[in-house]
């Protein structure tokens, strides 16, 4: 290899490594600070301490918000999974005018400004007379998570070899059991991955939920922001560490399931 190329390749690797450090720095620092025994955001000096995890356990408000977010993300993801799979399968085989348009409309919440989505949905709920915050959040999060499922179901079907169904039928299976025994296991890893990403998108949502929450029903990201603005102590670092661990688990699990290479195409 010539010198110029070596320098170029070397600088690409250097850029990648510097960027990697910058990407992980805020997350690593949070984990480090959460283990500090002091009340400031310092790196733990001497021995690590679980003090802030204990304080966190005693912080009622954050746990209530945590449970709310967990419930909303679970209900929204499961609903989206049913609605989105039906929709993705139906649209996959269909050929009609406006199919592409319908698809891009259904996927649009991934690209639309969250704050405009939030305001529109809030005013919609007022219009319809829906006044239960929890229900509003669930419905809004279904719309937000639906694109993840639709998109991934369609990608998975795209990569599925439909002659396998014919093969299964030739071997004596009914159409229904061929779908159940051949198609479903094939697209299952992608669907689980889709659900996990959809779940995290709902769980972490800030811009849309911001308009829908009230004093009694608040999601975790909103509650965390309140804490950041009021009392600044490392208990939030402890909570954030738990959330980072959740993401890491999901990513590793998804990587195991479908391979990160394919995950990057699903997203």
């Amino acid at each position, binding site marked *: 290899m010539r010198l110029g190329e070596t320098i170029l390749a070397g600088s690409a690797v250097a850029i*990648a490594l510097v960027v990697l450090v*910058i990407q992980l720095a805020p997350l690593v620092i949070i984990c480090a600070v959460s283990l500090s025994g002091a009340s400031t955001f310092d790196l733990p000096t001497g021995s690590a301490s679980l003090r802030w995890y204990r304080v966190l356990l005693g912080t009622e408000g954050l746990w209530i918000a945590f449970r709310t977010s967990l419930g909303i993300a679970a209900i929204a993801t499961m609903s989206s999974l049913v609605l989105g799979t*039906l929709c993705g399968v139906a*649209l996959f085989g269909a050929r009609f005018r406006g199919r592409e348009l319908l698809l891009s409309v259904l996927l649009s919440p991934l690209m639309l400004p969250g704050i405009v989505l939030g*305001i529109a*949905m809030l005013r919609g709920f007022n219009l319809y007379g829906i006044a239960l915050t929890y229900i509003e959040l669930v419905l809004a999060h279904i719309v937000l998570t639906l694109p993840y499922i639709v998109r991934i179901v369609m990608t998975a079907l795209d990569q599925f070899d439909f002659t396998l169904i014919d093969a299964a039928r030739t071997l004596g299976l009914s159409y229904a059991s061929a779908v159940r025994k051949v198609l479903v296991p094939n697209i299952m890893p992608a669907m689980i991955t889709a659900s996990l990403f959809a779940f995290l998108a709902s769980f972490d949502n*800030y811009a849309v939920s911001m308009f829908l929450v009230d004093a009694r029903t608040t999601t975790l990201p909103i509650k965390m922001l309140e804490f*950041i603005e009021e009392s600044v102590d490392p208990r939030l670092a402890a909570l954030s560490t738990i959330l980072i661990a959740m993401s890491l688990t999901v990513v590793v699990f998804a990587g195991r399931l479908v391979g990160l290479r394919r995950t990057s*195409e699903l997203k």
Partner: protein
Amino acid sequence: MNLAAAAPAVATFVAILGVPLVVLLASGFVDGGAPTLRHYSRLLGDAHYLGVILTTLKYGIIVTGAALLVGFPYAYVMARAPLALSLVLMLGIFVPMTTGVIVKAFGWSILMKANGILNTSLIALGIVDRPVRMIFTPAALYVGSISLFLPFMVLPIYSVLKAIPESILEASSTLGASRLFTWTHVVLPLSLHGIMSGIAFVFSMTVAAYAIPSLLAGAQFQVLSKVVANAFLVTDETHFGAAASTVLLLIAMGTAMLLNRLAQHVRPEL
């Protein structure tokens, strides 16, 4: 499969988002029951709001440009490096991407505090002699935003780079092309499609960002999304807010759609 199976999802989508969004955007053209363009002339005819729109565009362009500049090498190394390095680089994309914006902004603010770790290290290394103001500066916002949106630049570029078969590159060099020629005539055209979707993603997300400018740049940095939020949450000028929403939507979606349309044209046949 019957097309009717798509109905529940479409109906939910239309009822919860479609209709309310149309009603919202339409209200930007109404004032006191009569149709008007007053809200638009207020938004586009006022030096302050024009400045905000320009700031928003500048913010979007700088973040997108920087994300492309560092995102391409990152994606390239990720696609071509040995498995172990490639996996580590992927973790550097996926873990931040699936962590909430509040958590990341919180991490950045701990790093950038006056007596925070970055400043203490800089002083210890003798690079500066007193703490540098970092948080609530444009620099903090730009670093935080580039980092936040980078995954959406890296992933589409990574997937097109990964799809380029080694055999094509070998063929190019066997036929006598220099590395540089292979780059400019093979690799770049084949990855253009991914680059354009990356640009579309990052630009539309950056101009619409709300949380990160508030958390890292503070109140003096005004972007269009803050004008929208302010109109609905503070001053209760909903019609004006609707007009601002429409402009924000046009900037974000318009650019994305234009680039995606262009990307369709440059999609290579392999």
